[in-house]
C-alpha cells in the first residue's frame, strides 16, 4: 500500500454539495459543473493503488482504491453527474442538489472503498440520501414510497452488516475482494447487494419509489444505487452461477409489467430491472468477456437510462403529466426532447451504431460461448421485450400515438444540453466502441460489427417492430389503463396486515399476560414467601428437624425469630450469588477446554 495527499471523489461531491447549499444563481451553477469536472480530472491523474489508509478496531482500512473495475464506474458516475447537474440547473432550490451530491458522493465512496467497513458506511450514506431525494417530491405518495424504500434498504443493509461482521470474524480479512457464495457470511453479503440490485421479489422498492420522486430526483436515483450494487457483485461474486438464474429472471419478468404499465416512468423502472438482469447474468457467467460485457453494459446503461428518465422528466416538467393515457402528440411541441428520447430508446433496444449494441452483443456472445443456451434464449426474448416497452412504447405514447391536446413548450435549454450530451455519448460509443473497451477491466478482442452479429440483431429488432405494429393495428395490444398493477408488493401489503392482526390479537395479549406474570404474580408470591423465610422453612421440612428453632418460634409472639430474618435473607442472597459465580466459572472453564 502507498498513501499520499490525494482527494477521493466523494470529498469533491459531498463538500461541494454542502458549499453549493450556500450559493445562488450563476455562482452555484458554476460550482455544480466544477464539482464533477474537477473530480474527474483529479481521478484521471491518480495511478492505480490503495490510498488514505486508517485504522479502525484494529483493522487496516483505506478510503480510496483505484483499479480498473472501480474506475469504470467512477468515470460513468462523473460523466452522468455532469449531464444531470446541467439538466437540473434551472431548479432554484438548493436542497435537491445538496442531497443529490451527497448521494452521488456515497456512490463514489462505495465504488472506491478498499474494505468492507468503508464500503458499508458509504452504502448507508447512499440509502439515507436517496430516501431524502424521494421525500423531496413533497407529496403523500412520495412520503409513503420513501418509507417503504427505506425499510427495504434497512433490511438489505442489515443483512450486509451481519454478513460483513461474520466474514471479518471468520477470516480476519477486511479487504473487499472476490469472495463467492461459500457460507452464511458471504451469502448475507450477496443478499445485501442483491436488495440494491433489485433482485426478483425485492425489486418492488424500485418500481414503487423511482416514479414518485421529482423529475430531477428520479434521474439521480436511476444512476447510483443499482449500479453500485452491480459493481459490488462484479467485484465480490463474479462467476457465481446462481446469479445467472437470478439475472435471467430479472431480464424476463419486468417485460410483462412494463407492457401493461400506464405510468411511463414506471415503465422505465421495470425496464431498469430488465437491464440490470443482463448485467447480473454477465457477472454470473464470470468469464473475462462476460465481466467486460456486464461492466461495459453498466457504463452505457448509466448513459442511456439517465437519458430516457431525463426525456420523461422533461415531459413531466413541461406538461405535469406522465401517464400514457394523458400524453401523445408532443413531438410537434417538444422536438428536441423527442429526438433525444428516441436516441435513448434506440440505444436501450441495442440498434447497431448505438452503444448498447456492442455491450449487449458481448453479453449474449459470452452466455452462448459458455453453453448456457436456455439463458441465451431468455435473453433473446428479453431483448425483443426491451424494444417493445422502452424502444417503442416510451416515445410512441409520449410523443406520437394520439393527440392528447397538450401544447407544452420545449424543455429549457439546460435540460436539452444535458440530454444532448448523453445522446451524443450513446451514439459516439456505439460508433467508436474502442474508447469504451480501453477502460474495461480486461483486454477486449471482441468485434460486435461483424455481418452475422449485425444482421442477427437487425432481424430481432425489425421483427419485434413488426410484432408491435401488427398487435397495435389488430387491436390486440393491451389498452393503457389508469390502474395499479399487482406486483409482488401485494404479498408485502397483505403480510403487513397479517402482522398487525397478530400483534393486536395475539402478541399484545401475550405481552399483557407476561406483564402480569413478571410484574404482579411472581413479585407478590416472592414477597409473601420471603416475609418469614424461617417460618417457611419450618413449614416445609419434617417436624423432627430444627427443634431448637421451632421452640424459639413457639415462644415468639409474632411468629418471627429475632435476628434470623435478616441473617437468612443476606445469607440466601450470598449463596445465590456464589452459586451463579461458580456456575459461570465452570461454564468458562469448560468453554476454554473445548
Amino acid at each position: 500500500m502507498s498513501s499520499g495527499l490525494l482527494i477521493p471523489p466523494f470529498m469533491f461531491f459531498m463538500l461541494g454539495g454542502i458549499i453549493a447549499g450556500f450559493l445562488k444563481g450563476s455562482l452555484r451553477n458554476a460550482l455544480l459543473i466544477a464539482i464533477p469536472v474537477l473530480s474527474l480530472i483529479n481521478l484521471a491523474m491518480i495511478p492505480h493503488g490503495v490510498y488514505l489508509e486508517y485504522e479502525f478496531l484494529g483493522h487496516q482500512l483505506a478510503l480510496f482504491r483505484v483499479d480498473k473495475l472501480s474506475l469504470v464506474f467512477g468515470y460513468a458516475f462523473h460523466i452522468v453527474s455532469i449531464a444531470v447537474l446541467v439538466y437540473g440547473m434551472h431548479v432554484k432550490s438548493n436542497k435537491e442538489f445538496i442531497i443529490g451530491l451527497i448521494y452521488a458522493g456515497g456512490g463514489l465512496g462505495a465504488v472506491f472503498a478498499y474494505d468492507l467497513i468503508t464500503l458499508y458506511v458509504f452504502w448507508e450514506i447512499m440509502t439515507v440520501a436517496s430516501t431524502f431525494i424521494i421525500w423531496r417530491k413533497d407529496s403523500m405518495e412520495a412520503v409513503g414510497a420513501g418509507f417503504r424504500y427505506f425499510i427495504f434498504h434497512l433490511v438489505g443493509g442489515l443483512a450486509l452488516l451481519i454478513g460483513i461482521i461474520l466474514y471479518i470474524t471468520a477470516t480476519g480479512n477486511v479487504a473487499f475482494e472476490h469472495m463467492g457464495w461459500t457460507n452464511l457470511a458471504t451469502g448475507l453479503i450477496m443478499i445485501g447487494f442483491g436488495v440494491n440490485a433489485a433482485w426478483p421479489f425485492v425489486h418492488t422498492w424500485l418500481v414503487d419509489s423511482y416514479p414518485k420522486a421529482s423529475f430531477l430526483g428520479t434521474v439521480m436515483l436511476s444512476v447510483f444505487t443499482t449500479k453500485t450494487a452491480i459493481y459490488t457483485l462484479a467485484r465480490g461474486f463474479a462467476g457465481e452461477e446462481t446469479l445467472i438464474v437470478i439475472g435471467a429472471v430479472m431480464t424476463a419478468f419486468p417485460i410483462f409489467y412494463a407492457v401493461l404499465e400506464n405510468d411511463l416512468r414506471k415503465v422505465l423502472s421495470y425496464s431498469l430491472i430488465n437491464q440490470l438482469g443482463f448485467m447480473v447474468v454477465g457477472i454470473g457467467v464470470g468469464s473475462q468477456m462476460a465481466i467486460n460485457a456486464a461492466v461495459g453494459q453498466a457504463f452505457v446503461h448509466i448513459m442511456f437510462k439517465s437519458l430516457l428518465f431525463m426525456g420523461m422528466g422533461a415531459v413531466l416538467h413541461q406538461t405535469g403529466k406522465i401517464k400514457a393515457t394523458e400524453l401523445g402528440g408532443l413531438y410537434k411541441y417538444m422536438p428536441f426532447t423527442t429526438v433525444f428520447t428516441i436516441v435513448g430508446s434506440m440505444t436501450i433496444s441495442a440498434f447497431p451504431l448505438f452503444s448498447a449494441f456492442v455491450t449487449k452483443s458481448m453479453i449474449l456472445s459470452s452466455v452462448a460461448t459458455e453453453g448456457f443456451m436456455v439463458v441465451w434464449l431468455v435473453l433473446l426474448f428479453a431483448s425483443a421485450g426491451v424494444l417493445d416497452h422502452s424502444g417503442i412504447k416510451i416515445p410512441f405514447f409520449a410523443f406520437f400515438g394520439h393527440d392528447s391536446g397538450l401544447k407544452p413548450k420545449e424543455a429549457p435549454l439546460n435540460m436539452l444540453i444535458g440530454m444532448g450530451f448523453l445522446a451524443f455519448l450513446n451514439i459516439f460509443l456505439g460508433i467508436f466502441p474502442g474508447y469504451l473497451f480501453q477502460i474495461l477491466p480486461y483486454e477486449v478482442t471482441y468485434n460486435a460489427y461483424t455481418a452475422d452479429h449485425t444482421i442477427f440483431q437487425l432481424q430481432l429488432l425489425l421483427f419485434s417492430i413488426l410484432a408491435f405494429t401488427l398487435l397495435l393495428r389488430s387491436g390486440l395490444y393491451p389498452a393503457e389503463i389508469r390502474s395499479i398493477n399487482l406486483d409482488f408488493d401485494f404479498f408485502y401489503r397483505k403480510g403487513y396486515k397479517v402482522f398487525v392482526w397478530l400483534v393486536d390479537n395475539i402478541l399484545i395479549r401475550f405481552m399483557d399476560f407476561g406483564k402480569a406474570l413478571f410484574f404482579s404474580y411472581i413479585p407478590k408470591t416472592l414477597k409473601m414467601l420471603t416475609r418469614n423465610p424461617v417460618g417457611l422453612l419450618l413449614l416445609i421440612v419434617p417436624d423432627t428437624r430444627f427443634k431448637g428453632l421451632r421452640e424459639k418460634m413457639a415462644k415468639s409472639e409474632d411468629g418471627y425469630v429475632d435476628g434470623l430474618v435478616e441473617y437468612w435473607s443476606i445469607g440466601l442472597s450470598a449463596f445465590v450469588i456464589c452459586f451463579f459465580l461458580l456456575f459461570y466459572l465452570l461454564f468458562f472453564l469448560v468453554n476454554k477446554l473445548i
Partner: protein
Amino acid sequence: MAANHKDKDFTELKHDAVPGYKPVFGVVLAAAVLYLAYIFLSH
C-alpha cells in the same frame, strides 16, 4: 389506431383494430411459428 377519449379523465386508452390487419397478423404469426419450428427441428 383510434383512441378512446370519451372519458374526460382518460382512464383508458384503447387500441381499436384497423380492418384488414387481423388476418395479416394471423398469417405472420403462423409463418413465424413454422419458421421457428423449422429452426428447432433442423438443429
